[in-house]
């Protein structure tokens, strides 16, 4: 079953074609890496998938809903974590969890129970009523991820979730991603780190608004005859005509 299906999706801003007829699909439970240099159009594409932007043409379905006409339904079935840290610093951990839970209409009772489970999983039980700003960045990031998936969405969109986090925490973060994907959650992730691309089941690389390559990391390395994803990315990026 496919969690995301996209066909000739296009977004133009004036005469500028930010996303140029892209087509792909993501299967359920997959960790899908969405790569591209700055300005390649990956954020625009992702915003369309999340129902934040209307596509100029083309079609797409996310969690079975049309991205053009059913964006409100889509919003209920996805989780979203932005590249900037997206919890409220001057609310406590509990308040943050409760607030985001409230946005998705999780019943109060369930939410209370979930909150306790969540902080226990993260080992933050003793910090539940501390302000989020007192946490180190790595912890905040993990918490943000947990919060983004607490309403059990079908797909979670992560927009450069590991920016500015140290390698060990990043590793732990990816373990978390794997665990949730294992439970049937589809993960759609953009990243700048090429070593992270290796963790993905499949990777698409955008260049100039188009998808220039899409395959498993191993296949990509074979096709482009390099030893790691970084090589693949460099070879593709060289073709880019667009500059920032």
């Amino acid at each position, binding site marked *: 079953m496919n969690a995301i299906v996209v066909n000739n999706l296009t977004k133009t801003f004036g005469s500028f074609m930010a996303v140029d007829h892209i087509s792909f699909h993501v299967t359920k439970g997959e960790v899908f890496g969405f790569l591209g240099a700055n300005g390649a159009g990956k954020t625009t594409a992702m915003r369309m998938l999340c129902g934040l932007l209307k596509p100029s043409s083309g079609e797409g379905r996310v969690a079975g809903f049309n991205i053009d006409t059913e964006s409100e339904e889509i919003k209920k079935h996805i989780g*979203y974590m932005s590249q900037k840290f*997206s919890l409220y610093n001057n609310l406590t951990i509990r308040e943050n969890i409760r607030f985001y839970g409230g946005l998705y209409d999780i019943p109060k009772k369930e939410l209370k129970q979930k909150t306790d489970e969540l902080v226990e999983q993260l080992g933050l039980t003793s910090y539940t009523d501390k302000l989020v700003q007192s946490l180190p960045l790595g912890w905040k990031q993990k918490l943000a991820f947990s919060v983004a998936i607490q309403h059990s969405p079908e797909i979670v969109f992560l927009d450069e979730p590991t920016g500015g986090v140290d390698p060990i925490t990043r590793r732990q973060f990816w373990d978390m991603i794997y665990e949730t994907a294992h439970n049937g959650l589809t993960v759609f992730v953009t990243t700048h780190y090429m070593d992270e691309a290796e963790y993905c089941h499949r990777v698409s690389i955008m260049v100039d608004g188009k998808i220039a390559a899409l395959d498993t990391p191993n296949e990509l390395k074979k096709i482009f005859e390099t030893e790691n994803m970084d090589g693949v990315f460099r070879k593709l990026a060289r073709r880019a005509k667009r500059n920032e």
Partner: protein
Amino acid sequence: MVIKEFKHVLRDQRSLFFLLAQPVMMILLFGFALSNEVKETKIIVVDHARDEISKTLINRFEQNVYFRIIDIVPDESMADDIFKKGLAKLIIVIPANIADDIKHQYKSIVQLIADASDPNTAAIVSTYAGAVFRDYQNELLGLVKMPYEIKVEQRMLYNPQLISAYNFVPGVLTLIMMILGAMMTSVAIVREKELGTMEVLLASPIHPLQIVLSKAVPYLALAFITEIIILILSVFVLNVPIRGSLFLLLAESILFISTTLALGLLISSSTNQQQVAMFISLVGLMLPSLIFSGFMFPIENMPLPLKTISNIVPTKWYYNIVRAIMVKGLGIESIWKETLILATMTLVLTGIAIKKFKVHLE
């Protein structure tokens, strides 16, 4: 959602303190320090006459609460020096032959030299001093019957003692509401954009309008509390009465706060940076509010283009309303025009803001 916004506002204690302390400070400052009334003006008398009449005159000034004679000197050559040193605001020159002149020519000329580097004070002070001389003249006249005279009887309606608090309490109220409503709201929304949390909120099922409205509610409440603080202060500390209906005043205030919130929303949808939002509110709203509300500078004296501009500044209308209710004690029948204008402004602004907000999301 609304609860969370309240918590945000309450957690940010520094700005909360600022918001609540500011009106108190402004009211007290205006109330006691920046009064338009001039008391204990320092004056210097140049007494060329040194006779009975000049003594009587000096005596009168000494007894007057508005003046304090700091020196009596023989000639005015030092006048310039005195002003430069800022020792006095006014110099009174009594001519040498004042007694003779009055007796034989039935007139004498007393000179008042005022430091007009502060024109308002200079004008007020000279008027006061003039009044002292007129009083004396009237006493001299008391014996002589004038062939005919026109007596001017002044009646200062609504504020007979010309207490300046009557003027600035509505002014400060207007300004504070503007700051709270427009600036704080726009900054709060833009802050969310800057943090990146706005995107997450937008990606959630909650409606964008709901996000914005819940931002506005705590500030509406805060603005309302501030308003009540100001009113309490002005009634009990500054003795400015609320002559009209308190209910009407509060209702009009909610209308005005809505106007400012709409303005704040409009600002927030046109920028993504807190500092820009702050700057726009300050330059784009605060200054026009200050200048065109009629609080500091009378609108009647402005050239036509500026007068026209003043009509689109919401503060002007609210200021008129507050003055009408508080000071004049008028009811809705005399301020329906202002109310209607404010209401229209609010609707139009909200409309534009919502439209812009939606476009911005695309």
